[in-house]
């Protein structure tokens, strides 16, 4: 019984710590403009006006479209390339095998800011500044290392004997791959997709450096440039509402695939 109470106490403390900032943003998003400065944790008279205002604000709606489009395209490209690379690394023995993983690891350590300068000047010359493609390319390159590492870790856990025994039973190599390996690897692909998407969705530095208008600015960048009805009043409620609109769906997605996310995040740590 004592054990039970102690356990629940720990869980409750952690829950309060992790959820408090979220509840606070929810509360802020529900405060009417006139009461944004009341300093209370919970709203005195909750209203949805911040949310209705959001969807009539073209700055937010276009940013949301940019975020969805850019993140989805970048993630898809990144995962497809990573699947092939990881399959090769895990399954086939070839020279330069370690070089790909080593380069990927080296790149994850590289400060993103070091890419901003050359990309900024290069994109201006090539006409890619402030375009979708101008963000998709760096997003693919910075998320690729993570995707390759995750996919390689997954592929290494697959018992490849399965593929061989399928071939023994008369399946062609392609059939063996499609029927046996792909279904086993699917959860890994889904997890990699999700974690890669998460990284692109929240990216901020490239988003503010390589864009200048609504044309390609993603939500994280747009949030930083949000202004209220008057230029001098910070629209706390609107920022909070917008922040939640891009956070809540992702949080739900992560919680739904909780087990896989944890496995994916920790697969690197176990091997040390």
């Amino acid at each position, binding site marked *: 019984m004592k054990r039970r109470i102690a356990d629940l106490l720990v869980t409750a403390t952690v829950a309060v710590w992790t959820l408090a900032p979220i509840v606070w*943003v929810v509360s802020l998003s529900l405060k009417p403009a006139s009461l944004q400065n009341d300093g209370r944790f919970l709203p005195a008279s909750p209203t949805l006006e911040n949310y209705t205002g959001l969807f009539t604000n073209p700055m937010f709606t276009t940013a949301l479209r940019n975020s969805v489009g850019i993140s989805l395209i970048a993630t898809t490209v990144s995962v497809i390339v990573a699947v092939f690379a990881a399959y090769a690394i895990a399954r086939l023995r070839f020279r330069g095998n370690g070089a790909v993983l080593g380069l990927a690891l080296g790149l994850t350590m590289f400060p993103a800011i070091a890419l901003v300068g050359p990309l900024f000047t290069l994109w201006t010359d090539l006409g890619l500044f402030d375009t979708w493609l101008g963000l998709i390319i760096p997003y693919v390159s910075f998320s690729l290392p993570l995707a390759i590492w995750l996919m390689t870790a997954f592929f290494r856990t697959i018992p490849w004997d399965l593929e061989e025994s399928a071939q023994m039973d008369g399946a062609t190599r392609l059939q063996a791959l499609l029927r046996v390996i792909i279904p086993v690897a699917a959860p890994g692909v889904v997890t990699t997709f999700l974690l890669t998407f998460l990284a692109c969705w929240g990216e901020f530095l490239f988003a503010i450096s390589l864009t200048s208008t609504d044309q390609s600015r993603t939500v994280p960048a747009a949030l930083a440039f949000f202004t209220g009805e008057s230029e001098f009043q910070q629209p706390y409620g609107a920022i909070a509402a917008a922040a939640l609109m891009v956070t809540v769906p992702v949080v739900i997605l*992560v919680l739904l695939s909780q087990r896989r996310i944890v496995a994916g995040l920790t697969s690197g740590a176990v091997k040390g």
Partner: protein
Amino acid sequence: MAAPALLLMVAVTVVPVLRTAALSLESYSLSAPSERAFAGLDNYGRILTSETWWQDLAATVVLTVTSVGLEFVLGFALAMAMHKVLWGRQLLRTVVLVPYAVLTVVSAFAFRFAFQPSVGFVGGDFNWLGETWSAYSVIVLTEVWKTTPFMALMLLAGLVTVPGEVYEAAKVDGAGAWQRFWRVTGPCVRPAIVVALLFRTLDAFRVFDTVYIQTQGAVGTETLSFLSYRFLIRDLEVGLGSAVSVLLFVCVAMIAVGFVRAFRGES
């Protein structure tokens, strides 16, 4: 089949990186492009003799050490809790993932508003983000909130590898809880600790988003990433900004090498 990945990484990362290195040797400002010229190591000299660089380096180190230190202590406690707790375990493992899924920009706003006089619930008229040390505290708190779960998960991955039998054997042999922790748990978890600390230190050293949203580098909170951004994007000083980027990379590489050396030396 790994070739496309390799090509892509080289094309969009290695090539720009080499370009940064080349640009760092030029006197090149986009506001005066006609005066572009090769400058050798001039930019490096200017930066390394400036007060700004050393101040920003100090700020970056302070923020990195305090946030990673706190994250490690809290993360280890959290990992132990996730490992040991039986009642509410599922709930615990679920809520831990919430900060991980939240965008850095969003958590930065949440904490900024919470500490803002008259708006935030933290209360008082004290302008937390207006003074150096209190601004540091808010930035560190935000970073710790956001990334402790990641640290905890990495450490948990190490904890689950501790073989139960060895642990039980030590217990039978009369080892106390403290001894078991140091002699059995510690060595097993060490690889996970090294990886978690390395990842988080490298990440923390490049801190940008939180600083941008919360202080814009004011009151002595400018970090090296922010300095580089300020030169490159705001002041359009391509040469100087590139040199800061290269120096930042050198710092990051030194941290990584230092970690690997320290780890190898111990074992």
